[in-house]
């Protein structure tokens, strides 16, 4: 198969970038999109050109490193698929394919298709944990968890942090990511003590990083390789409203006279 690729090339954050056309041939239908990019890079290297920088690691859809907007769709046209799991048989021979990086103010571009997603790490650091005392590991079955709850928490925990939700959102919002991370702990008993401080802190960090906000388009859900539902955004909204409007109520101290 042959393809004409239009790829965003940009040497660094401070230099201007542009779309550059490349022809790549010798692609087989069984190649993944990243393997096709490898092939292109080989051709570029042989021709003495700079290869295209892009992120990848596991190449089996679990690490969340790969990140390309292919023909205007984060991770390409297949649903529930990361770029590394997208195969060239999805495309027509001779097709023109555009490849762009994730676009968001909170994801500064480093080079070509590589963006800096450490804003996600900082959201996690703000509250995406549970505090446990050190010491011997507790017996796993000592806290009974209803199966439906465990499943729901796992649905949220599927998030691989790739950032496709941000890339696909017309508002550049990280609500789906943050909601998944807030929820997978907030649903489980172990996450209850910090449930409301967690949501307030993580949302505050999310805003601080310069992500947009939700208009309930559900584009993120459609782009998510793990099909995480926007129901978690609703759940985060609910927890956030509870946290800011109802809790924590400060009721210590005396009731002074007039």
């Amino acid at each position: 198969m042959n393809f004409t690729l239009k790829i965003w090339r940009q040497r660094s954050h401070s230099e201007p970038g542009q779309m550059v056309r490349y022809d790549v041939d010798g692609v087989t239908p069984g190649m993944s999109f990243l393997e096709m990019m490898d092939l292109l890079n080989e051709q570029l290297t042989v021709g003495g050109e700079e290869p295209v920088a892009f992120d990848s690691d596991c190449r089996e859809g679990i690490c969340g490193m790969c990140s390309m907007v292919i023909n205007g769709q984060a991770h390409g046209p297949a649903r529930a698929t990361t770029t590394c799991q997208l195969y060239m048989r999805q495309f027509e021979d001779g097709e023109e394919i555009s490849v762009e990086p994730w676009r968001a103010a909170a994801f500064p571009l480093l080079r070509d298709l590589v963006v800096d997603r450490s804003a996600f790490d900082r959201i996690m650091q703000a509250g995406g944990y549970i505090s446990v005392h050190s010491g011997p590991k507790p017996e796993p079955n000592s806290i009974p968890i209803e199966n439906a709850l465990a499943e729901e928490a796992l649905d949220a925990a599927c998030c691989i942090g790739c950032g496709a939700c941000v890339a696909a959102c017309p508002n550049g919002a990280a609500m789906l990511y943050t909601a998944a991370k807030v929820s997978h702990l907030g649903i489980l008993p172990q996450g209850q003590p910090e449930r409301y401080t967690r949501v307030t802190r993580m949302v505050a960090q999310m805003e601080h990083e310069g992500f947009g906000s939700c208009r309930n388009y559900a584009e993120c859900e459609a782009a998510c390789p793990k099909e995480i539902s926007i129901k978690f955004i609703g759940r985060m909204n609910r927890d956030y409203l509870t946290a800011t409007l109802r809790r924590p109520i400060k009721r210590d101290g005396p009731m002074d006279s007039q």
Partner: protein
Amino acid sequence: MQRVGTFYRSVIGKKAIVAATGAILLAFLVFHLIGNLKAFLPDPAPGVYDIDLYSKFLRTVGEPLFPRTTVLWTIRCVLLVALGLHIACVVQLAKQNRDARPVAYIHKPARREATPSARWMLYTGSFLILFIVLHLLQFTTGTLGSTGFGESVYANLYLAFHKLYFVGFYAVAMLILALHLFHGAWSLFQSLGLDNPDRNLGLRRFAMAVSIGIFLAFASVPAAFYSGLMQAPKPAAQLTQQFEQQR
């Protein structure tokens, strides 16, 4: 108070305000609609129109406990504050959202889920501001499309909706309102964290029914006047007054 500040500054809090004020405005529309449909009720007496009595009721409701138009003005103030908050929050959110993607995609981004209704909220909403101003100028203050029948709502309706351009404008406006609500009447539940997979379909259908219903019912009044179904008004003001006194 500090928490209220946190709430208002956060995007989730602002969106909750948009949703809550949107719900207030939607509730108002339902009552407004019930009032409008009184144009179709049979006349309580010859030359006396039910909708005129209703208009009078709006001004006198609460009497004698509250002076004339107190209740009306209270409701107007609540609506004005709601609308102001709705717009203020929407504008602030829109700015943040624009800043969140400074460099646009070159390939047209695919839209796999967002309906046109959802994507056009800012445009339909902005049109609604224009509509609300013109609508108030026409039927509340009487500044626009001068009516000549004073306080008779029925006569004002009759005069306005014999002109095709008014009928057309109101039909288009109601279509745009319906578009705003097609997304908004569902979205408000999601923004307030009230949607869940088990009720999502129901809420989506609710929004669909609300928007189609609002359009048809509001547009029915101008359509009926234009089509000639409604009888011409008699010089009605005094008749209404006499009727009131007799009752």
